[in-house]
């Protein structure tokens, strides 16, 4: 009951002389009925979690927030550019004096307090918690059933992608699959139940998410995730796990659904976003404040594309100009992420999964199952599709005579095709070639360097060295 109403009643009763004896009783009764509603006020100018998450529209907004997490500077917007972009041999940062310490990542001397590592960790779990909110709450909502499944599938797709990145960056990570509050997290920390789950457990969860996603996502979904994206990502997960037959089979489901653009440069053109080759990209819009990003691999950030990469390309390779840099408004920027129209931010999408990646992955999976010398067989065809588009001559079975040669050719092709697309480091680790490949560019690393350190701040808060240890070597 609204209090002024309570008061009016009382004022009226004031007139009554009986008040003398019953006043106390009246006061007590009225106040009880006015109490807790009166002091329960929801925020007016900001929505609260309590009042939200009730309708299909609310959940659409919540799912958009999951993609937003991918887009943020804690993931693809900035942190991955430094973490994954610099780590491998396709970009170099020699500016050891910068306070942000991006160069330390490139040189494998990054400490557990490195800003970008902390940022990526934070981005990972902010993203996961957004997905978990949707996944945990949407089942109870009364809304269109198919849309409900789709939204849930989108959240599961994003969650799978984030965990897939996390597990490849840090190895064992805490596997949180339901919404949990700060208090619950603190409780888990206190109970020492917040642990780093095994890589295998995390992969199991990823696969589960993607299996749900591929079934419930539409084939076409604008800038959002599609069934094709879920299948491709699942294929990549299998491939990373070494489950080659599964990978080959899953990727096969996507073959034909996308196509390679004839002109390689068109794939990255900011005026040609979401084209037929893009399976899934993190989308940006420089026209809206906060929806664009700072240029990736910009030499203004002291990042250069090394000669070791540039000179490795065949001069005729149509992909070469896309890794070469040209002057933008904020320094030299490689062609893949070049956007001349700088509006305080640029608007390139980040291609997470491209069709050429799918083709190469399937070729690799098939080769890992068994080498097939048939140049018209699937493996050679897929690989050569990619090469031909790059205006290179196709490989023949005299070029690649056995499984190992084919394997090396695939890895090299991926290096050229997917340079600067945050794949190289994971490819090196996945194929066990990281140490040897990095040695070729003069970077000596050890097995410990294959994983990044867990952020120091997180370790200190959790403070459980047995259940939540640092990675070895840090």
């Amino acid at each position, binding site marked *: 009951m609204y209090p002024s109403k309570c008061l009016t009643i009382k004022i009226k009763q004031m007139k009554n002389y009986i008040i003398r004896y019953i006043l106390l009783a009246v006061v007590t009764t009225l106040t009880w009925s006015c109490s807790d509603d009166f002091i329960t006020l929801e925020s007016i100018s*900001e929505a609260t979690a309590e009042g939200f998450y009730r309708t299909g529209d609310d959940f659409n907004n919540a799912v958009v927030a999951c993609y937003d997490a991918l887009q943020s500077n804690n993931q693809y917007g900035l942190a991955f550019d430094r973490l994954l972009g610099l780590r491998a041999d396709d970009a170099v940062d020699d500016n050891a004096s910068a306070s942000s310490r991006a160069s330390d990542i490139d040189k494998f001397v990054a400490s557990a307090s490195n800003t970008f590592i902390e940022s990526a960790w934070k981005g990972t779990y902010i993203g996961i918690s957004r997905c978990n909110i949707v996944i945990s709450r949407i089942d109870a909502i009364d809304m269109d059933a198919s849309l409900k499944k789709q939204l849930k599938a989108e959240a599961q797709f994003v969650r799978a992608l984030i965990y897939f990145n996390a597990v490849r960056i840090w190895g064992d990570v805490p596997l949180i699959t339901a919404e949990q509050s700060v208090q619950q997290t603190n409780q888990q920390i206190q109970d020492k139940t917040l642990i780093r789950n095994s890589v295998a457990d995390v992969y199991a969860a990823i696969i589960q998410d993607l299996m749900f996603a591929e079934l419930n996502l539409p084939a076409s979904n604008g800038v959002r995730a599609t069934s094709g994206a879920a299948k491709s990502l699942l294929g990549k997960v299998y491939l990373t796990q070494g489950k080659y037959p599964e990978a080959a089979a899953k990727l096969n489901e996507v073959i034909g659904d996308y196509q390679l653009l004839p002109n390689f440069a068109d794939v990255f053109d900011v005026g040609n976003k979401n084209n037929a080759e893009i399976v899934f990209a993190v989308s940006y819009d420089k026209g809206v404040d906060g929806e664009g990003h700072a240029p990736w691999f910009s030499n203004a950030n002291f990042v250069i594309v090394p000669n070791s990469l540039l000179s490795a390309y065949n001069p005729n390779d149509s992909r070469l100009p896309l890794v070469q840099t040209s002057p933008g408004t904020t320094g030299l920027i490689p062609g893949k992420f070049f956007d001349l129209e700088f509006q305080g931010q640029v608007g390139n999408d980040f291609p997470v999964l491209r069709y050429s990646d799918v083709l190469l992955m399937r070729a690799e999976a098939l080769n890992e199952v068994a080498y097939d010398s048939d140049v018209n067989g699937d493996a050679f065809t897929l690989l050569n599709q990619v090469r031909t588009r790059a205006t290179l001559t196709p490989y023949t079975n005299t070029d690649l005579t056995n499984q190992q040669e084919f394997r090396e050719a695939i890895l090299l092709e991926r290096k050229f095709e997917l340079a600067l697309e945050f794949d190289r480091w994971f490819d090196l680790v996945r194929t066990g070639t990281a140490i040897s490949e990095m040695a070729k560019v003069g970077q000596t690393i050890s097995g410990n360097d294959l994983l990044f350190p867990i952020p120091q701040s997180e370790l200190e808060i959790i403070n459980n060295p047995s259940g939540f240890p640092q990675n070895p070597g840090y």
Partner: protein
Amino acid sequence: MKIKLNKHWPLARKRILLTIMRTFIFLLCTTVFSLSPTSSFSQRKIKIKTERVVSVNEVFNIIEQQTDYRFIYPQDLFTNASKIQLRKGKIKITNLLKSCLLGSKLDFKLSDKNIIEIVEHKKIKQTPSQKELQKFTVKGTVNDSNGQPLPGANVLEKDSTNGAQTDFDGNFSLTVSDENATLVVSYIGFLTQEVALSGKTSLVITLQEDAAKLDEIVLVGYGSVRKGDVSTSVGVVNADELADQLTTGFDQAMTGKVAGVQVLQTSGSPGGNISIRVRGTASISAGNDPLYVIDGVPLSNDTKFAGGKTSQYETPTNPLNSINTNDIESIQILKDAAATAIYGSRGSNGVVLITTKKGKSGKLKVSYNMNVGFQSVTKKIDLLDAYQYSQLTYEARNNTYQDYLNKNSLSGSSSDSNTIRTANGAPAASLIPHQILPYLNGQAGLTNTDWQDEIFRTGLLKSHTLSFSGGSDKVRYFVSGNYLDQEGVVISSGFKKYSTRLNLDVKSGKFHAGLNLTPTYSVTDKVNSEGRYADEGVIALALGYAPIFPVYNPDGTYNFDGNGNKKSWGQYSQSGQLNPVAVANLTQDELSQFNFLGNAFFEYELSEGLTYKLSLGADINNFRRDYYRPSSLERRFQGGPSIPRGYSSTDQFVNWVAENTLSYINQIGEDHDINAVVGYTVQKNRFNSNYLESSNFPNDLVTTLNAGTVTGGGSRTEEYSLLSYLARVQYGFKNKYILSASMRADGSSRFGPNTKWGYFPSVSGAWKVMNESFLEDSNVINDLKLRASYGVTGNFDIGNYSSQGLLGQSNYNSISGLAPITASNEELTWERSFSTNFGLNLGLFNNKVTLEVDHYISNTEDLLLQLPVSTISGFSSSLQNIGRVQNKGWEFLLGFKNHDHDLKWNVNFNIATNKNEVKELGPNNEPIIVRGGAFNFFITRVGDPIGSYYTLKTDGIFETQEELDNSPHFSGAQVGDLKFVDVSGDGAITQGGDASQEDRTITGNYNPDYTFGIGGSLSYKNLDFGFNIQGSQGNEVMNILSRYINNVEGNFNNRTDVLDRWVSPTNTGNGTIYRANRVASGRNGWTSDWHVEDGSYIRLQNVSLGYTFPDDVLEKFKLDRLRISLTGQNLFTITKYSGYNPEVNGRFNTGGLNNTSPGEDYGTYPLAKTISLGLNVSF
């Protein structure tokens, strides 16, 4: 009228006999143990519930009702006797009887069996028959010290029965024996006064209130108690202590008057800022302001930043602007937790109760107060003139050049021209600006601007207050209007206020109602005075701006030669600055406020002592701010015209409160005093704001936003509500032992669903030792009371939705999304303070010497801190209740007073210590390090006070190369640079990094060790003199402004301190000022203890001299009172602090962690000293 004695004495004897018999029988039947010894009789007190005028017979009835004493006297003995004015409170029977019989030839005595006999006065000599007398008639008026007439006062010719009583207007007329007779004037509650006629036929007699004043009433929140019965710690400032101070806010008038209450004038800006701290800083992240309650309405204190801020250092608006000092009757500051616990969740920072003046029954009294004063800055900072400045710039640049040459092994000399320097590849910072060349050549008569003189002025301050008051028995009124106009001491700043007040009070039978209404409108003309030169703070600009530039160009436009690039000042790598006069005059910035503060209450006496009260109050504020920055004002580093920008905002605060209380005050039997109250209150506050901003105005002709293109805007609404139950009971036994307990339950919308309700209990006790038999007859000690209290209070000043998880925009490629941005914390609860207080009150020689001592320990727990949490939760921090801060201290208030002679004087001295210490922080006691301005850091860590300065430490300057080589130093450091101390001892100077390398250390703190005040007044006949001195000791100021105006770089003007700078190993100056260098080597500019200064000060805050015109003059003009006065404020301050104001607190309330970064001076509006003339007339 005269008191006539009844002639029928013999008849009376029969009645006396009858009465005796009746009484005897009565006593026999009802009681066998009520025989009271005479000593008890003299101590017995009678309670007077309301102020009224009664007959003597009625007084006896009251005594009979409240005691078992009976009177014996002839029935019509007092038929024609004067009436007695009774004042609310308690009075000893003996005193009451004496007053009743005063002027008569009667006396009383207690006989056996509780019978009071009225007997003839033995001492009175037989009055000569009136016929023998020469008739001499005298007329007069009896007033109290405020000029209020006293109806019912007794006027008696000395040593006679001849007397009269004042009428309703305080007038009397008496025929006395001769022109040299002496009148004895008495009135309950006032000191009896003897007046020699000396031939005068007309008198105005002013009675002084009884010094003992033990029956004075003290407000304690939702009720009042006698001052003598207070068992908690309460500071009181009365109207007479506030009188005659020309202030824009009453807060200034209470400065230094109450021990443990720090009133800080952190900025002198008109209409701006108030900072009151009661017993230190208890909270790290929540508010530390006391709760203000005006006539029962708790003010909302979130109006401070209404209208928005133009810079981060802008001072808040004073929430008490709307209160007119002249309307204040008294201010009471509840200090300890037992006193404030009745305000529960808002009590932990103290409670300031303000009572406004009420009308008194009597004829209409008109009072007019006028004050006119002149204000000027208290201080100017000694700066270099244009010639000295040029010399400094020259030397600094030569040193930069020399450093460059040395580093690159080039040869060259200071006489190299700019062409040669450039050819050598030297940087711009080593070139000699052409503007200074004429000065270096010693050319006379060049521009030499004193920028302080340009922005400061003498401001006129005037105030007029007119009030009407008066009333009848049933209706009393007080109406006042006030106009105040203050010109700021900085150009283009000022404050105007128009306020009115109506206080109405109606009493009829058991009903009592009242109304207080205060509409106020004020306009503040703002100038951007606080903070950095880069944010256009005009004070910092005026201090730093090169004196070689003129204010105006020859054509009358503003000169901007000190601005950046295009004007060729920037090409030399000088800091681009804007002309401070232009900034002040061209920027339009006005904040207007309409405040409506009002409340109405209704009281009904349900039965003896039991009263129900309903009080409804509202505090409504509307703010509007209009800002325009014209094209004629350049922007830093850019030429003009600039792109104009304007904004306009409105903020509305509606705060209403309804309180229901039921109070019971009674004496049960002889020994038991009960004073109890229960109540419940509801309060709700709603805040609405909106703003618009425009840009691209075509010209500066129209400055309202319609003329430009609207570029932004927004609106916002917030609410909070509070629902409370409260109860307090005070029990007094034998007027010796007092026990009081209170409890409040507060439910607030600001807290989580599981913690909405907080409970705040308190208990206190007092032992009135002076009423014990062993002190009863003491001629020395007339007051001795010991107090102890314990209470729990809360702090709910945490923002409106802190417990809720809020969502923020999380859009993806223009598709709108929402995601949590703050973690909800359903357990979020009140910060709670647990405080213990021990106190002592001592009064000696009829309170001519008084002493009040308090000692307190207050622990604030469950501090609200934004703690880092595991990001696995999806958040990186969350607001949690953790940590503990302790404040403990001593307070002494010592008073001396002598009003016995024509020379009346009193002096009060107070001193308070407070030790602030952080006891616990987050789970690992991780310190909180906050960055202030200019890479200045503050640390809040366990074992130290909140917000200590955390900087590098210096140890003089490097005097020799050998010393430099053998000490850890920053690379590039040279002889003549500051020598930093390697606190960590690792052989290197490190700021930041892990703790083992860290060389920053605590170098000071804003909290004083103690604060003190000395106030006094002296009057001789019609002259009066008053003064107030206040000060603090042991507080430091972080003067980061000296990173600019004492940086020896020659890019800003510098203080004259730099004249003693290090020049060469043989000319080391005073050994504290480092070497001039435009590009300081050795990181001299890094914030260090070099910038920390002692902020101790002692200030003559107020001094006044007044003359009250004598009665004969008043009589001639038919006036009650006429007084003129001369007052000076802030006349001088003794301090070592080099800036304007040692109380400065630049980051006051900037953002969430405001309390953790106090005491920074980044340029602030100087305090004004005021000399004013006052006129006070009443009739």
